[in-house]
Structure formats: C-alpha cells, structure tokens
C-alpha cells in the first residue's frame, strides 16, 4: 500500500513543466527525422540543451522541473516492463546464440568496467570520480545501487550513466561500420551492453529486433555487473589507484 502511495505522490507532483519536456521532445523528434536519423540530432541530444536553456531563461531550478515531470519519471517503470514484449518475440531465436551472447555479456561487461577505471586513473581523475565511473554502462537504477556499495557519488553516477548512453549512440554506428557488424541483433546487444537504456531506445529506432537484443544486453549486463563489481572492486582499486 505504501508503495502505491509513493507512486501516486510522484505522479501527482506533475505540473505544466511537463510541457517543456514535450515541446523539446517534439522538436528533437522533428529534427531527427528530418536529418534521416543522424545520431548527432537524436531527440535526447536536441531536447536536453533546449529544455535546460529554457529553465535558465525562466529562472527555474532543476528540482522543481524534475518533480514537475513526475508522470514521465514514473512511466520509466512501466516502460522497462514493456521491454519484455518485443524481447519475448525473439526468445525462439536465442538458444543457438546463447554461448555468443553469454561470452559477449560476461567479457564485455567486465571490459567496460575495468577500462573506465583504468582510463580514469590514467587521466588523473579523483578517486571518488573513478569510483563513480565504474558502473557507467549499467542502467541507472542498478548503477545507483552498485555505486552506493562501492563508495562512489550517487549524484554523479546518474550524469555519468546518461553521458555514457549519449556517447554510445553517437559513436556506435561508426564502430559498427568500421568493424562491419551488419547484423541488427549484434548491434542491438552491443548497444544494450555499452549504452544501457539510451542505447536500447536508439536500437528500437532501428528495428524491434535490434531493440529486443539491446534489452537483453542491458538486462544481462546489469545483473552481471551487480554480481561481479562490488566484491571485485578492491582489485582494480589496488592496481590503478
């Protein structure tokens, strides 16, 4: 019952500021489709600075804007559940691909985490920043939990996760072209592992099949990173920090 009350409280805080997000999204979607799907003009990349600029113009603080978007923030939960629908349609294809998917998730999830810690250390980032970078490729709710466990900054990981997703959707297609990964299933899996939900949204722009594999990659990498990172974190910390 308390859970339902909390959900209702979040929704009931929604206000007119939702209009700013909607207008930003509509402009972003228009620009994206006019450009023929240019990743630089992804709706998120167009809408975010536009809305931030509007907030500065009307002198509104971020907390008021964020709370006013209560229903959008709440909708992330049902949408995460809805990702199961396209994924269920691909389940028959999975058994022969399980070994490749398994190895890619296990090795890839480990690599994205360790590379972030190593590069952060090489670039002389502060220890607190590096600890807040480790879970960068995992979807936000799981990343927040992991970052709390390993002693990073929760406020920072939210931004790091978003930036990772944005960088992922900007560069993924170039890398796929370079390495000649043409199969949408593998493109989707890689987008899901490396750029979590933002990569998954981009994968659904390509096709439901690509999106379904991105959902799979995102989900499996989230679980895997939550399992290996907190107990193994002292090892890269001892090596790189």
């Amino acid at each position, binding site marked *: 019952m308390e859970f339902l009350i909390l959900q209702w409280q979040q929704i009931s805080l929604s206000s007119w500021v939702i209009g700013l997000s909607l207008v930003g999204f509509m402009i972003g979607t228009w620009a994206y489709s006019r450009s023929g799907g240019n990743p630089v003009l992804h709706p998120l990349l167009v809408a975010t600075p536009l809305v931030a600029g509007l907030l500065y113009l009307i002198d509104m603080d971020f907390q008021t804007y964020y709370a006013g978007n209560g229903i959008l*923030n709440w909708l992330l939960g049902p949408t995460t559940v809805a990702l199961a*629908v396209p994924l269920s349609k691909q389940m028959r294809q999975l058994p022969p691909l399980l070994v490749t998917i398994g190895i890619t998730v296990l090795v890839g999830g480990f690599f994205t985490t360790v590379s972030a810690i190593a590069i952060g250390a090489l670039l002389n*980032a502060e220890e607190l*920043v590096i600890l807040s970078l480790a879970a960068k490729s995992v979807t936000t709710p799981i990343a927040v939990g992991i970052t709390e466990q390993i002693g990073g900054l929760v406020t920072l990981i939210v931004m790091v996760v*978003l930036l990772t997703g944005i*960088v*992922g959707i900007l560069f993924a297609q170039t890398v796929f072209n370079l390495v000649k990964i043409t199969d949408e299933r593998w493109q989707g*899996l890689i987008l899901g592992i490396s750029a979590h939900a933002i990569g998954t*949204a981009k994968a659904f722009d390509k096709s439901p099949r690509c999106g379904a594999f991105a959902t799979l990659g995102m989900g499996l990498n989230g679980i895997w990173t939550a399992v290996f990172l907190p107990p193994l974190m002292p090892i890269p910390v001892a090596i790189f920090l």
Partner: protein
Amino acid sequence: MLLGVLTVYDRPLEFLDKTSNLLIQNLSLMFIPPSVGAFFLSAQIYQQFPSLLSTILLSTVGGILFLALLVKLLLYKAPRFKSPANRPKDQ
C-alpha cells in the same frame, strides 16, 4: 515475470503490443528530465569535467569497439576453424 508469461503463452496480444510499442517509441522522452540535470551540476564536479568526459568518451567508444571485435571473432572467425569444410585446402 511478463517475459516468462509471454514466452510460455506465445500468442499475439494486440492491446499489449500497442501499449508497449507506444511506450518504447517514446522512451527517449522519459530520459529528458534526468538528462537536463547534467546542466545543473555543482562547481566541484565541473572542475573534474574534462577528465570525466574524456574517460567516458574513451572507455565507451573503446568498449563498443572491443565488443564489436569480440562478436566478430565469436561469430565469424571461430566457426571457420571448427568446420572442416571451411578450412583452407593444402596446396
């Protein structure tokens, strides 16, 4: 739970398809409010921003490249050596 039910049930449910499509097509909209937060960070975080951004850029692009090469290796290279038909013939 929904994934399990749909995998077992295995019949098209039009209302579920329509609702999930609508939500998924507008997934980016739901990321706008938290993304806007990146423009309202504290000054202390902004001081670390160059190294933070460089790390995210290099590790994410490097990660995608690594994953793409790994998939390529697993899919296209490994079966060639397993399948006798694809082995290069002796000269």
